C-alpha cells in the first residue's frame, strides 16, 4: 500500500502529543511501519503545534508537507485553517469547532477569521466538524478533547479493529483518568 499521511494540529496544551501517540500505537499494532514526528519546546507554550503520522509498508520521511496529507485532525478551527493547505486535493479534515484566540487576536492586532469551516468546505475538502469540547466535558474533563477526536477518527479510518483502539487508549492515557477517556472515546464515536 501507498504510504498514508495524517497530521494532528492544535494549540500547545490541548493534548495533541497524546493523540499522536495513541494513533501511532494503533497503527503499529495493525502491522504498519509507522513514523511519528513531534516538535517539543517553544511550540508547547500555547503556540501552534503539529504532529505528523506516516504509515504504510515502508516509511522514510517522518515529515508531511503542503499538499501531502491524506487527513488532518484539528483540535481548533484556526489551526484547521492554518494547515488545510497540507491536505491532498481529495483529503479529509476532522476539526473540533472550538475556537481559541491567539495572542494577536487577544491584543486586538488581528481578527479571528469568520466562517472557517464553510470556507474549507468550499475548497472541495471533505470536512467533519464536531464539538469535541462539549463531548469531553460530558465525559468528565475538558482535557479529554484529544481522545474524543480519536473516537471520531476511529469511525473514519479503515482497517483497524475497535478493540485495538480501546487498547491503545488504555495504554497511552494516565491510569487515573482511564474511565473518563474511555467515555470520551465512545462519545467521539457517536458524533
Amino acid at each position, binding site marked *: 500500500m501507498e504510504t498514508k499521511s495524517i497530521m494532528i494540529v492544535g*494549540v*500547545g*496544551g490541548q493534548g495533541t502529543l497524546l493523540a499522536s*501517540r495513541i494513533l*501511532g*500505537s494503533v497503527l*503499529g499494532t495493525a502491522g504498519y*511501519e*509507522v*513514523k*511519528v*514526528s*513531534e*516538535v*517539543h*519546546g*517553544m*511550540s*508547547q*507554550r*500555547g*503556540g*501552534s503545534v503539529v504532529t505528523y503520522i506516516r504509515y504504510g509498508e515502508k*516509511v*522514510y*520521511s*517522518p*515529515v508531511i*508537507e*503542503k*499538499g*501531502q496529507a491524506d487527513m488532518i485532525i484539528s483540535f481548533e478551527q*484556526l*489551526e484547521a*485553517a*492554518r494547515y*488545510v*493547505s*497540507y*491536505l491532498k*486535493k481529495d483529503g479529509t479534515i476532522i476539526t473540533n469547532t472550538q475556537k*481559541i*484566540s*491567539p*495572542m*494577536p*487576536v*487577544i*491584543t*486586538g*492586532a*488581528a*481578527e479571528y*477569521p469568520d466562517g*472557517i469551516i464553510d*470556507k*474549507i468546505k468550499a*475548497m472541495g475538502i471533505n470536512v467533519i466538524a464536531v464539538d469535541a*469540547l462539549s463531548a469531553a466535558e460530558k465525559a468528565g474533563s*475538558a482535557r479529554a478533547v484529544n481522545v474524543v477526536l480519536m473516537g471520531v477518527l476511529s469511525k473514519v479510518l479503515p482497517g483497524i479493529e475497535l478493540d485495538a483502539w480501546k487498547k491503545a487508549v488504555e495504554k497511552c492515557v494516565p491510569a487515573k483518568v482511564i474511565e473518563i477517556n474511555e467515555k470520551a472515546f465512545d462519545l467521539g464515536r457517536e458524533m
Partner: protein
Amino acid sequence: MSELMLGNQAVARGLYEAGVSVVSSYPGTPSTEITEFSSKYPEDEIYCEWAPNEKVACEVAIGASMAGARSFCAMKHVGLNVAADPLFTASYTGVNGGMVLAVADDPGMHSSQNEQDSRHYAIGAKVPMLEPSDSQECKDYAKLAYEISEKFDTPVILRLTTRVSHSQSAVTTEDRIERTLPEYKKNIAKNVMVPANAIKKHVVVEQRTLDLIEYAETSGINTVEMNSDEIGVITSGICYQYAKEALGDKASYLKLGMVNPLPVKLIKDFAAKVKTLYVIEELDDVIETHCRKNGIDVKGKELFTLQGEYFQSKVKQVVLGEKDEWQTLDAEIPVRPPVLCAGCPHRGVFYILKKLGVMVSGDIGCYTLGAAAPLSAIDTTVCMGASISGLHGFNKGRKGEYEGKAVAVIGDSTFMHSGITSLVDIAYNRSNSTVIVLDNSITGMTGHQNNPANGKNIYGDPASAVNLEALAHAIGINSVTVVNPGDLAETERVIKEELAKAEPSLIIARKPCALLKTVKHKPPFHIDADKCKNCKSCMRIGCPALVSGDKCITIDNTLCVGCGLCEQLCKFDAIKE
C-alpha cells in the same frame, strides 16, 4: 520485540543495552528526553543526574570514563559550546571505559537561539561522530559508539537533529551487556594533560584520525546503495530519509553513518559510478567541502541552502525538478506564537519592567517570551547566563548612565547553569547593576526538570538546594530581596527601590511555575459584565485566558488558574474571584 520509540528514547535504550553506568546532562531541547528516559532504568544499573551545566556534565562523564565506567552526557547544540573545553582535551586523554557525548542540533530553530552545526566540533576536537537517521539507528549507533570509543581510545559524539530526536519509529530491543568495571590504573602520561604529555598525545590523536578514516572506508558504517548510474546522493542522518522519500530508486545513495572523519576512497569510488552527484546535508557544507577538497565534483549548497530543514519536497524539486501542488484557504490567518502560560509567575515582573521602561537584559528560558507582544519587555537575549554579564557590560559601556534604569532577568536553572560567575563579576568589578532571578523552582522550558536550586534530584528524591540568598551574600552582593511576583504593587516597589541603590543588588522573584502539579490553583476568575468598561487595562499583561469582546472582556475558564494578576489591574472592580 519491536516497539515505537522516540529517537531520544532509543538512544537511552542503546545506553542501557551498552552497559552504560553513568549519565550526566543538562536539559536542552531537543536532547532532554535521552537523560529522562535513561533515568527510568534502575539507578543501580545506570546512575543519572542533572548537572548544573553541560561543561560539568561532560567532565562527570570524563571522570566516570577514567574510572572505567561506560559514561554518557547529552546536550543541545549550544550546550556543546559550553562543554567544548573538556571535550577538546578529553580527545587527547582518550578513555578507559567508553565515553559518548550526544549532541542534538536544531535545524529550523524550533526551540533554539541559533542554527549552529555541531559537526564542526567533531572536526575541531578530532573525535569520531556518528549520525543516525531513525530510532533503530539511534539505538544501534549508541551501542556502536561505545565499541568505537574503546577500540580507538577516544570520546565519540552521537549527532542527532530535532527530527531524529523527536520522531518515533520501530526499535528492536536486546538485553543489556553485563560489563565488569576494568581496574583503575594511575597513568600520568595518558591522563595529565600538561604540555610535555599533551605534545606526545597530539601525535597519537592524529594517528587515531588516520585509523578512523580507514575504519570509515571499510567498516560498513557508511553504506552504498546502487540503483541508478545517473543520480548519486551522498547524505547522512534525517536527510537520507528525505532523499529516499523524494527519489526512491531513481538515485543511488552513499549513506554516511559516520560523519567524522569522512572516507575518501569510498566517496571517490561512488562518485565514479554516477553521472551527477549531489550532497544533501542540512546546515553547513561539511561533506561538500570534504568532497571538493579531495577533487570530487559535487552539487550542493548552490542548489540547497544553509538555512533551515530540507524535507522531501525540496530534494524532489532540486534533483528532479518536480513540484508539489496544494490549495490555500482564502483568509488572513493570524499567527499563533507561543506565550507565557496563564498564571505564569514571570508575567508580573515583565509587566512592571515594561511599566518602568527599563532596559532588560534577558536570558534563555520560558521567560524569553517576555520579549513577545504585548509585554515586549526584553531588550537582549544571547546565551545562557549572558543576561547578568551582559548587563554589567552594558552599564560599563554607558559609563553608569543606565545604572538605575537597567536590569537583568534570569531563571533559577539558568542562574545555576552560568549566571553565578556573572554575578561574581558584578560584585567583584563593581557595577550598580540590579539582577532579578525569576525563581519558579523548576527548569521550565525543557519540560520540568529538577535543578540544584529546587531541592530535588532527577529521580524526584530530596536533594541539597542552593540557597540563593546566602549565595548572593557570599559572592559580595549585600542587597538581596525576595519578592512574590504575583503581587504587582510589592514587585514594583522592590524593583524601584533596588534600582535606586548605589550598589549591586539581587531580587529573587519567587513563585513556582503554574504548570507544576504540586501548585494548588484557585478557581477561574470571572468578569462582572456590568462593571467592565472594556478599557482593556487588564489586556496589557498578555494573558491567554483574557479574551477581548465588543462589550466587555471575558475570561476563558478552561485556561484561567486564578492567579489574580488581572484583578490587580482593574480600576472598576470588574474582575472577581
